[in-house]
Each structure stands twice: as structure tokens, then as C-alpha cells.
């Protein structure tokens, strides 16, 4: 799901998204003011990994 409007995230979180090669627009934000947090990214990454595993099966 693409976030409507602008994604809110601190610059550090955006950097982490790049490092993890996550399109931050696909991540739903659970932080203050709807921002994407580091935890959100990690959760998204885990979900991605699980999805790939199940796809591979």
C-alpha cells in the first residue's frame, strides 16, 4: 500500500530504509504524527523476509 501524501520519517530512518533497501513509501508509520520509525522498518523487513520464504516454498 502506497502511503497517500508524504511519508514522514526522520532523516536517520530514511537512511536506514536505504540501507535496508526498503521503499519507505510502502511502510506504514506507527510513530508520533504517523511517522515511520526504525521499528516500523525492521518489522517491514521481517515481513518481507517471511513473505520471500513463503514464496519460495
Amino acid at each position: 500500500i502506497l502511503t497517500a501524501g508524504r511519508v514522514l520519517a526522520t532523516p536517520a530512518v530514511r537512511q536506514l530504509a536505504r540501507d535496508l533497501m526498503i521503499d519507505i513509501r510502502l511502510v506504514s508509520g506507527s510513530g508520533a504524527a504517523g511517522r515511520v520509525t526504525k521499528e516500523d522498518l525492521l518489522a517491514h523487513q521481517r515481513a518481507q523476509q517471511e513473505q520471500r520464504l513463503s514464496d519460495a516454498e
Partner: protein
Amino acid sequence: MAKFNLIQAIQDALRVALQVDERVLVLGEDVGVNGGVFRATEGLQAEFGSLRVIDTPLAEAGIVGASVGLAVNGMRPVPEVQFAGFLYPAVEQIVCHVSRVRTRSQGRFSCPLVIRAPYGAGIRAPELHGDSPEAFFVHQPGLKVVCPSTPYDAKGLLLAAIADPDPVLFFEPMRIYRAFKEEVPEGHYTVPIGRANIVRTGKDLSLFAWGTMLRVSLEAAELAKQRGWEVEVVDLRTLSPLDRETILASVQKTGRALVVHEAPKTAGLGAEIVSLINEGALLSLEAPVLRVGSYDVPQPLFSLEDICAPDARRILHGIERVMTY
């Protein structure tokens, strides 16, 4: 309506102000008989007399200081400083008194004056004629600082400044004094101080500029369009107080920003705009807010002025850096 260039608009504002308020005075070096070195005050002394449009001795601290005295004793002086680079001898009067009279006296006295000064380089003028010292006056509390980029805004903002109960520094973009004409209403009207103007909308990057830098910024925005970037160009118009609302709303929309000014980059007004964006819209930023200013070197003699100040190419380079971050 009439079609005016910037100088004509300013002249018209002064004329209207002199007409509607008998307390208004226009004073400065060569403003009377000569009508000002840029003809901003042409014809005013003939129309309003030499008691209201006054040729003063060559002394900026004296001109501004006398304007303080005139202002606190019931007049509405509009002193002209011939070029913004000659505001420096008046800095003590501006920073110690013009800006502080109201606070110091808790409102018992006030200082409703407007200091007009042409600023910016680009017309092959001698040294000090091309300085852009606006940051000093934004940093000093108690002043308002205004800088129009169009004839319509110039007349309206100058009339607003003259009517303002607080002191205003009115920077006039010298290089575009006669660059183009536009429709300007006759008579008295004001453009509100403290409100920026979005002159070009865009979804990709917010470019903040004022005065002399509007045209080159719009030029750069057109070049950026060819690269597929839609740049929103915001004419700040008032430098103090900044229109934080408009600035933040734009950045929240685009996520990328660039500030363009003629003054040297370091500790220029761009730094304040970056800071307020950082404070108020950090979470929207996809890239650093960059600044395109003059290089941090002393203002050169005019053979180097075009390289020193931002041009469309350098602004585009800034846009590119922000867009490709």
C-alpha cells in the same frame, strides 16, 4: 491601473504616501532636485515642496538618526540610503535605536520610519554598490525587512511599510528596477507585510527566493522542468518576519527545498530558512535543504560579480543536487 516598472511603482507609492499623510517626509542624498540617482523620487520635490522632500547632507548615520528624531516626534520619515552598501555607517542608529525605541520605552515612543535602499549586484556598479546586507537586519529584533520583486508588490509593500507602526527596511532589487512593467493599481493599496507569494507551483522542490533572485530562480525552474522536475518558486517578499506557514506548507508538500540569495551563503538568511524548515518540517525532508548564495568571499569588483552571485546555472545545479540526493 497603469503599467509600471519597479522604479515607477516605488515613485508612485511615495507620491501616494505624501498625498495621503502629511506627516510623511522623503529625505536623503540627491532625492530632491535630482529625483534620486535612480529617479525613484523624480518629480516629488516639485510636487510636494522642499519641506517634505529634502536633500540632506552626505551622512547616513545623521540621516537615519535624524529620522529617528522625526519619527518619535510625530512625523513619518522615509529616508533613502543611496545604496544598501551605505547602510553600514547607519548600523549603529538602526541596531541601537530604530529597532529598540518601542521596546526600550515600552511603547511610550515608537519609530515608524521606512529606510529604502537599492541592493544587489549585477549592473556593473562600483564596489559597495552591490552589497546585500539584509541578514544583519533580520538578525536584529525590532525591525521588519521587506524585499519586493515586482512592481505590484513594490508599491503595495512600500505603502504597507510606510503605514506600519514599526520600522521597516525596504530593500529594492536594483538590477530589475527597469527590467519589466506590469499593471499596478492607482491610488493607495497595500500588500501585506509578512506574507510570501507562491509564484510558480510545483510538486518536487520548494525554492525560496526574494528580490533580485526571483527571475534567475524562475529561469532555473524552467530549465529544471526540462529535466522533469517541477519546482515550486516562493517569493518571500518579507524577510522579517518570515512567513513560516507558507514555507513549511510548501516543504511539507514537496519534501525538498532550496534557498537562493545574493548575500554570502554563510550565516545569510538562507541559514535561517534552513533552520526553520529543519525545526518545523524535518520529517518531510527527503534531502538536505541546500542554499545557493554568493560565494563566501568579499563582494568583488564588477568583472566578477556575475560569477559571484547565483545565476540560473548555479541554481539549477543546486536543484539537481537536491533532487538527486
